[in-house]
């Protein structure tokens, strides 16, 4: 396989938690705690997990909106995890983000034209006329009328605002787009329009996506490979079909089982996992999932499971698979 576009090695992001009279840092929120992943050129890696698992922090860390605590981020042959803001600027063209709530991520006081032109100005692309031309073609690409150019974000519906966010992300012809819950704020009938648009754009411009979401059905639909995250760690990763057909980690299994299926004939015999996601400030010892795991046994509480390679580019971190290997 050729060199991946993005390689993340043992990435950690710890937020200090300050407390007490002198506001001293006593604890760390281990939002991202040793993540390894790769995104190949032109593919979509889906990143799934519950709220608080660190998926958004990981995405923002890769885009260098947060500075990682340690670890490496190799993007397009360059190590970018500790580049200065100035050295990072040319690379920012190639890594763009789409956010969950387009109302919050678009400047309410700028017109759509200004919003879309801004990245072109920052990266000193063309003259005013050619930039305006580019803005018009961007609107056309994402399916908005040209007259939108002089309108403000509040004049648009949620789905249209997300289209503006997408247009802004593709303005500089990026290589990688980090989509952070791009459809979870949208209605069902609009959600499918946006997913179709993202898939079309990928095919047309050869984009790579890191697609962060909590909805597994959505992630399955758009992704080539899927990584499941739990409490700052990736616990299973593999081709999306394989993840669904042969989930190896009990957490992945329970996530898949928990999805309500829109078919009244399939009354599920759900194995519901109990409890909540523990705090990343003080994660459980051993396997982080073991307090909720229906299949936990001897070693789970004591030692952290190693990541094991299974056939078909499938990786999992679970003591159960080690046990199966041994027998």
């Amino acid at each position, binding site marked *: 396989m050729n060199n991946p576009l993005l390689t993340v090695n043992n990435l950690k992001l710890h937020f200090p938690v300050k407390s007490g009279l002198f506001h001293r840092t006593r604890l760390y929120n281990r939002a991202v705690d040793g993540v390894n992943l790769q995104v190949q050129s032109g593919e979509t890696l889906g990143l799934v997990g519950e709220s608080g698992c660190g998926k958004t922090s990981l995405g923002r860390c890769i885009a260098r909106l947060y500075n990682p605590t340690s670890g490496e981020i190799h993007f397009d042959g360059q190590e970018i995890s500790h580049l200065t803001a100035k050295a990072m600027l040319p690379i920012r063209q190639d890594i763009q983000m789409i956010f969950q709530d387009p109302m919050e991520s678009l400047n309410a006081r700028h017109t759509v034209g200004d919003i879309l032109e801004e990245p072109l100005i920052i990266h000193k692309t063309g003259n005013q006329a050619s930039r305006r031309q580019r803005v018009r073609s961007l609107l056309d690409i994402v399916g908005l009328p040209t007259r939108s150019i002089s309108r403000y974000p509040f004049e648009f519906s949620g789905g249209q605002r997300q289209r503006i966010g997408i247009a802004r992300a593709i303005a500089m012809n990026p290589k990688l787009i980090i989509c952070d819950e791009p459809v979870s704020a949208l209605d*069902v009938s609009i959600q499918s329009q946006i997913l*179709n648009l993202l898939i079309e754009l990928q095919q047309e411009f050869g984009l790579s996506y890191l697609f962060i979401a909590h909805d597994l*059905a*959505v992630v399955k639909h758009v992704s080539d490979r899927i990584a499941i995250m739990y409490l700052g760690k990736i616990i299973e990763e593999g081709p999306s079909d394989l993840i669904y057909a042969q989930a190896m980690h009990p957490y992945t299994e329970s996530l898949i089982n928990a999805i*309500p299926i*829109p078919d009244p004939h399939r009354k599920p015999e759900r194995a*519901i996992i109990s409890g*909540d996601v523990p705090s990343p400030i003080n994660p459980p010892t051993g396997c982080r999932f073991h307090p909720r795991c229906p299949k936990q046994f001897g070693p789970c509480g004591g030692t952290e499971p190693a990541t094991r390679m299974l056939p078909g580019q499938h990786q999992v971190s679970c003591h159960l698979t080690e046990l199966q290997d041994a027998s």
Partner: protein
Amino acid sequence: MTNLLEICDLVTEFETDEGLVRAVDEVSFEVKPGCTLGLVGESGCGKSVTALSIMQLLPNPAGKIVSGKIFFQGLELTQLPIQEMENLRGNEIGMVFQEPMTALNPVQTIGRQLTEVLYLHTDHNETSAIQAALAMLEKVGIPSPEIRMSEYPHQLSGGMRQRALIAIALVCNPTLLIADEPTTALDVTIQAQILDLIENLQQQLGMAVLMITHDLGVIAETCQDVVVMYAGKVVEKGSVFDVFDHPTHPYTRGLLKSIPRLDSRAKSKLDAIDGMVPGLLDLPPGCRFQNRCPHKTPECESTSPSIETVSPGHQVSCLNWKDL
């Protein structure tokens, strides 16, 4: 079987700066005792306003029930004096809201909010009210209820808060529970826990549930009957089997086709419904779905469809349903 709740031609309007908005327009449906009815639709379709109309909790003076009747156990709720409505609310009819953090009072303990309902509607004294509250917290699966009783909402996780809210709604053994997007703010594994909890409690207590959601998966798993709403109108209703197996309205069909499924081919094009919901201020004459409908005929622009029966119990509001 007599119906527990019967809504007949309910019309609810809101006074806004831009004009009068008819959020619910001639909506009719029935909830049978002990059964679960799902109310499904996209944001702005009027499903929450319908629930607030039943509870007589519309924002005052902006929102008003203009016409129509709501019968609950034979009582006509729209004409009921406030005092009698207050006796029903929280007692015979419980309600669970979407965002438990905003529905719970942040400066009162869980225990106080739970016993308040009991003091209001029952003749419990302090000791027996606390006993009943503890039993209810235990029933909704909150671990160590004695400690939780004296805690504040912010000390609980999202799932626990929703359980506390359910406990408050159910502590007086209501015959009807209105659940307005009870799991939308929750993670999937927590959603599964809460849906399971509501179903178990329903079987134990024999109450009926009006489940309001935008998630067709939740409807298919929890409901016997379903009402599909679009822009303030009912477009289709029937049993879940009728509606999911033989969707008749183009909107219902579009919705069912547009959701990504686990067994769909990756990166295939989804059958999206084009366009978007019309604003309630400038609704087109005729059918409200016409601008997005793939089967639109000239008649749709002028004539409002009425409710027609497809099969016993399965109704649709579309002029052309027979030809689709």
